[in-house]
């Protein structure tokens, strides 16, 4: 490298060069243009993730997708929408009303339930929405044999033949064992009423129930408040009012734009700037930053979701009840509630969450008490503790924080915990195989607000009894009272189960997290449906409309 040949240019030439640079700079600045917004009766909602699969009976488990189906389809029954003393709208998880059904009645024995369909209804494309469509829908549900078929069967509707078409406006369900589960199992997206005229042409030998079409389309078969206008993958979903929806006069807006904004801090910034009207899934640690913002309102509701530390009841040393109890006495409940959930939740005190009938916190004795925990551990044969692994998803910030607190607390009683982080898909796979030993679970919510339905899935079912809990008495009670209409006997059984389960401590009971939704102050009419947490868009409006 020699010397700089800078002196080979004259001052004039340098000016020339500067001009080139200046021109470039001006061009770039000119690109920065602002933009005004204005349009009527449209709400923009920021959601964290795209939807996946819109086939009502063979859908994925994600909330975004299920929320869309809830807003696009109608069912026979729905939760009653009530206004509480404070003027807030709530979907009552225990009271059911007809959706497309005008009336629901049952014979005295409870073996036949009759649905009368509202006369003159049509699908979004104008085709008749009547009992024939309902029959087609249930034939499809049972023919396809997915989760919806199982849930309908669970309520003692034994297959497609048990759903009988009486006339164009009447359909009957035969119930083999009278029970209280049926309506609760039916008020959800799996029971979306579909248009046979639209769906049938897509049914082929290879795909007998038109899954492939319904997975990605709803056009013409929409029976609910909205039609899916566009689904621009990874970007935006637009819903427009369905003029043929039976209750369309009650729909408070014309268009809902769901904008996919994966980054939580961006969702928050958009909300504060007014670019979106509602933001879903704001981390609780960011909520505090909204408190002094007069343009934003945060609403929170206690959910019935159960957050717990799972302990595999078949894997030593967790197969020992005393070990599970010791851990239950060592967990820092308050710290997790206050520092991880930032106060957005309540203590879970039973396998049956607060808000579900027959819940009691009478048997919850666990609070952090290291002496007691140590004594139990010694009694179990581990006076010096043991080593174990605690498994969490690596994409769950709450799980990571909780894990550190659990690790620190258990060290106090000699249990040496190694935290194992797994990618989401791998964690789910092992969870589904029920092969986690000691793990963090915070997702489950039972869509049917029935204690036995809930207990069946989490403490008995092959799929979802993630801790492999087994107790003959508890299982017998679940079997006997899941399909039973004797309220007093069910309550007694639920109490007995709670007493046994709390003593056996298959889980360390952590929390019921809050559902948190943030919106612009001028957005009104949010309705909270505790059964499923899905946002119903039809009640939302702006104060200025």
């Amino acid at each position: 490298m020699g010397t700089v040949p800078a002196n080979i240019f004259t001052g004039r030439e340098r000016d020339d060069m500067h001009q080139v640079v200046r021109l470039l700079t001006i061009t770039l600045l000119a690109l920065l243009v602002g933009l005004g917004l204005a349009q009527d009766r449209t709400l923009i909602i920021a959601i964290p993730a795209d939807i996946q699969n819109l086939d009502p009976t063979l859908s994925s488990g994600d909330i975004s997708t299920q929320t869309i189906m809830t807003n696009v389809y109608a069912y026979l029954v729905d939760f009653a929408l009530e206004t509480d003393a404070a003027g807030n709208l709530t979907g009552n998880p225990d009271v059911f009303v007809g959706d497309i059904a005008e009336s629901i009645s049952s014979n005295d024995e409870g073996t036949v339930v009759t649905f009368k369909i509202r006369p003159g209804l049509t699908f979004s494309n104008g085709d008749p929405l009547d009992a024939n469509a309902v029959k087609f829908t249930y034939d499809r549900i049972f023919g396809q044999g997915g989760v919806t078929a199982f849930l309908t069967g669970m309520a003692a509707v034994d297959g497609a033949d048990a759903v009988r078409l009486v006339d164009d406006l009447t359909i009957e369900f035969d119930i083999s064992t009278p029970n209280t589960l049926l309506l609760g199992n039916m008020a959800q997206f799996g029971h979306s009423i579909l248009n046979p005229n639209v769906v049938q042409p897509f049914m082929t030998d290879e795909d007998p129930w038109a899954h492939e079409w319904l997975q990605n389309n709803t056009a013409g078969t929409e029976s609910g408040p909205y039609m899916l206008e566009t689904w621009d993958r990874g970007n935006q979903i637009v819903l427009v009012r369905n003029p043929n929806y039976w209750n369309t006069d009650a729909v408070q807006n014309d268009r809902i734009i769901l904008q996919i904004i994966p980054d939580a801090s961006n969702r928050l910034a958009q909300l504060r700037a007014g670019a979106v009207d509602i933001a879903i899934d704001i981390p609780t640690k960011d909520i505090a930053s909204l408190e002094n913002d007069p343009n934003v309102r945060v609403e929170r509701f206690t959910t019935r979701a159960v957050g717990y530390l799972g302990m595999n009841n078949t894997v030593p040393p967790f197969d020992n009840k005393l070990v599970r109890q010791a851990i239950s006495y060592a967990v820092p409940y308050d710290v997790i509630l206050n520092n991880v959930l930032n106060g957005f939740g309540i203590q879970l005190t039973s396998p049956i969450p607060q808000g579900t009938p027959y819940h009691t916190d009478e048997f919850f004795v666990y609070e952090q008490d290291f002496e007691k925990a140590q004594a139990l551990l010694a009694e179990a044969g581990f006076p010096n503790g043991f080593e174990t692994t605690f498994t969490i998803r690596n994409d769950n910030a709450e799980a990571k924080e909780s894990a550190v607190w659990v690790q620190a607390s258990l060290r106090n009683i000699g249990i040496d915990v190694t935290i194992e982080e797994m990618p989401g898909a791998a964690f789910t796979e092992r969870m589904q195989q029920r092969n986690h030993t000691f793990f963090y679970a915070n997702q489950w919510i039972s869509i049917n607000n029935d204690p036995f339905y809930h207990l069946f899935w989490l403490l008995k079912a092959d799929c979802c009894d993630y801790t492999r809990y087994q107790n003959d008495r508890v299982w017998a009670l679940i079997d006997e009272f899941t399909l039973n209409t004797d309220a007093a006997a069910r309550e007694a059984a639920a109490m007995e189960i709670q007493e046994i389960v709390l003593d056996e401590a298959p889980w360390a009971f952590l929390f019921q997290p809050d559902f948190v939704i943030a919106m612009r102050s001028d957005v009104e009419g949010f309705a909270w449906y505790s059964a499923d947490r899905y946002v119903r868009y039809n009640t939302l409006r702006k104060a200025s409309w």
Partner: protein
Amino acid sequence: MNYLVYIVRRLFLLIPLLLGVTFVVFVLTRVVIAGNPIDQIVPPMASQEQRDRLAERYGLTDPIAVQYLKYMRNLVRGDMGVSFQTGLPVTREILKFFPATFELTTYAMLLALLIGVPLGVVAAVWRDTWIDQLSRFLSVSGVSMPVFWLSLLLIYFFFFQWQIAPAPIGRINPRLVAPDTITGWYTIDSLITGNWKALQSAISVLVLPTIALAYGAMAPLARMARSGMVEVLETDYIRTARAQGLRWRTVVFKYALKNALLPVVTMTAVVYGFLLGGSVLVENIFAWPGLGRFAYNAIASSDYTAIQGFVLYATTMFVVLFLITDLIYRALNPRIGP
């Protein structure tokens, strides 16, 4: 004619390369990345029977060797398989997300070239002056500043504090209807269809993510341009040219630049190829519906076919870019014949 033969030969070399890549990715997704894709597409309550049925439908019950052969057989016909998550052909999915990434990346690349190359050239011409220091500062910060941090800063100041940039939501103001698809580029499509509102919105939302991506991409280009220029300006033929009284523009732009830019061309291909894979961080932060997020989601949900499709796309993209680079090289420097 020579060029044509050369291009065809190069493209043929793609075949063994893609064979190797598909094999490696196939094994990696199924053996190394844990997680059963079926768990991701059914609710937890789904019965084993239903899971088995789906696994069979997606061909997951066959031995891996058979799965691979079937996959290759379909691939030869241009069929990359069906995504587990969406049930749509992966080819269609990639084509859907490609324009968003292609548009953003190309503008970022142009901006990076537009700033980086002149900056490097000017820095070389006025070595060790303030402009050289500035160039050095920009390059070092461009390389070392995390792109997500820069993105958040841009959003915070330009959108949130000063409100001169539009809301960073995707490719167009969500209240507007996207222009009809012709090229897939919103700026071009709205221009062709005369949709001025869409054009304005598309340009204005492009600004911040373009700057965020360009900042990092500019750094290596500026360094390359500077070192190339410094080297060339010291050669005898430049000194001779100046001594003959040629204008500086002629010297710099006609004689020096052509030679100085050869390494920049290579670097451009590398950076461009890298960006065309989609930037997960920038796309996430700006809610940009591009391939980076597509790939990220595919990996997070063990969507085997989508992962394979993406890797094939990225490989092909690099090969094509390097081919183009070689052709440009030859055009710039006739000494390198085909």
